[in-house]
């Protein structure tokens, strides 16, 4: 799911940087406040993120198939370290993957952090892990806790991957990179990530179960769970049912949206149809929202000047660069200059080496 720089427009990448950066800033603030109480957190985070980085390279055989799956970092890290620390650790992992392994672009880092770290750490933790883990007594009802760990890992991984994949589709479509309609692109991405999420969830739950059996105090929320009793057990069951119901509604809603007979429906609803005017599709007042409005004109002019978003109508325009023969010849000349720089560089290096050799 690591996006390359080429797949994003600068405006979209910048927005994602702001979103991820703000969340990171807030996380740093929370962690700094915690630092005095727990000064060892930083080395623990570093070692755990290094472990997750290496652990993601392990191939886990999926029974019954010839293929293998991998670990889901965000969910594991937030279950072990908490959401803020998990988020920062994921940022560090993604930064190292981007800088040293070219896995995801530098400009796309903000988007990648959002797609792969935000949902797994914050959504996975606050919406899935914490509600499911709270309440039960880990000592008294171990089977119940085990089931809840499995459910939380599975739901967390599946949902965070679905949201992440959807964000990738949304960001790429907004960047105007692909001709693929929004609905078709989402229809490709979501089912693939449903399968990946399921496998990742199972692997993550296996690791978390092992930690629970050996050192349960390492897991977030479990260590501070209240004393067991019928009331808490009941509440935990109710929470489980509510979380499951919300998840089912979410997944059902999302799937029905994509299973619609008109896959372009969402694209049409989101972006409008330029030929018919945006107002015709969105039911908005054409004076204010249509193509002819003064606001749209000004916005269009600003966009043209800054040119941060790609120009959708460029291909029909007379000035389309790269469509003329002169463009072709010019490109060949640029390529020749580039080759010339390489030859000159090689020449000077050889000369330097010879000089060093004689000395």
């Amino acid at each position: 799911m690591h996006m390359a720089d080429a797949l994003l427009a600068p405006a979209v990448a910048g927005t994602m940087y702001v979103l991820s950066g703000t969340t990171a800033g807030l996380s740093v603030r929370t962690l700094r406040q915690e630092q005095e109480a727990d000064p060892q957190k930083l080395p623990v985070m570093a070692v755990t993120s290094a472990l997750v980085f290496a652990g993601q390279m392990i191939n886990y055989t999926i029974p019954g198939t010839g293929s293998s799956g991998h670990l889901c970092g965000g969910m594991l890290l937030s279950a072990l370290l908490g959401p803020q620390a998990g988020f920062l650790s994921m940022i560090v992992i993604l930064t190292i993957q981007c800088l040293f392994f070219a896995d995801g672009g530098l400009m796309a880092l903000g988007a990648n952090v959002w797609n792969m770290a935000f949902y797994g750490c914050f959504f996975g933790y606050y919406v899935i892990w914490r509600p499911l883990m709270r309440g039960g007594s880990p000592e008294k009802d171990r089977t119940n806790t085990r089931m809840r760990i499995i459910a939380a890992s599975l739901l967390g991984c599946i949902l965070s991957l679905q949201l992440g994949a959807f964000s990738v589709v949304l960001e790429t479509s907004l960047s105007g990179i692909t001709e693929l309609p929004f609905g078709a692109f989402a229809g490709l991405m979501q089912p693939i990530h449903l399968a990946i999420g399921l496998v990742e969830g199972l692997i993550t739950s296996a690791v978390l179960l092992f930690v629970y059996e050996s050192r349960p105090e390492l897991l977030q929320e479990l260590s501070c769970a209240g004393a067991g009793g019928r009331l808490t057990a009941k509440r935990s069951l109710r929470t489980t049912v509510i979380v499951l119901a919300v998840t089912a509604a979410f997944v059902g809603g999302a799937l029905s949206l994509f299973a619609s007979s008109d896959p372009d429906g969402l694209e049409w609803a989101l972006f409008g149809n330029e030929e018919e005017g945006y107002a015709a599709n969105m039911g908005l007042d054409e004076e204010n929202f249509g193509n002819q409005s003064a606001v749209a004109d000004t916005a269009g002019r600003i966009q043209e000047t800054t040119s941060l978003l790609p120009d959708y109508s460029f291909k029909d325009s007379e000035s389309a660069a790269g469509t003329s023969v002169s463009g072709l010849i010019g490109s060949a000349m640029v390529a020749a200059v580039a080759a010339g720089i390489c030859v000159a560089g090689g020449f000077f290096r050889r000369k330097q080496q010879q000089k060093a050799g004689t000395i």
Partner: protein
Amino acid sequence: MNKMDAALRELAGMDDLAALSSGIHRLHPAVKFLATILYIFTVASFSRYALSGLLPMVLWPVLLYQMSGIPVSLCFRKLRFVLPLVLAVGIWNPLLDRVPVLQIVTLTVTGGILSMCTLMLKGVLCLMASFLLMATTGIDRLCAALRAMHVPEYPVTLLLLTYRYISVMLREVSVMTDAYSLRAPGQRGIHFSAWGSFLGQLLLRSMDRAQSLYESMLLRGYRGGFHYAETRPIARKDWLFLGLSAASFAFFRLVPVAQILGGMFV
């Protein structure tokens, strides 16, 4: 060689490149970082049909590769990660956008082919720039640059510590994987029954390792922050590099150089 060993080699290779000495290596890391970000944003801002407009942007990284002595071929090896993903998205364009934009004798170039080629070129250029940054800077100097740009100490220290520990963890996982595969010949990956315990064992050991790491940091005088070797202020030549780079990006972005050059002959 397993995946972990390959990753270790790749990390060591990058460290070796960063240890070379050249004018580009000696530039202030913050300046190089800013210029790279600016370059990538400029490349991404080109329209999806502006193939010939985008092409002159190749000159900046090509020149810097030559000046720094970093082999371009090393960077192109990393394309195996970038190009398949870019291609997976771009491959649909020729199928869906069939409006002809250029006729070369009998060959018709459609808008889709043009936009796909532009996308691929953008992918290559962005990779060239970010690889060059890391190959001439290294993690220590990059962290120093981030601190110089007032990025909070906490995430920067975390980045540095994690990077240092990644090689340790990769080695551990590599040894474990090798030991496992020797005991389970003919089996691809980790069996279902060992999914939890395989990484879980290492995780528990690592938590104890973090404890001793923290103690050793305290013994070496750690008080919540690291000191970086690269502390020199940004000099005039650094500003000159940034200014020239930014000016050339603006020039290539605003002036269709290839078009004008070609126009002289047509």
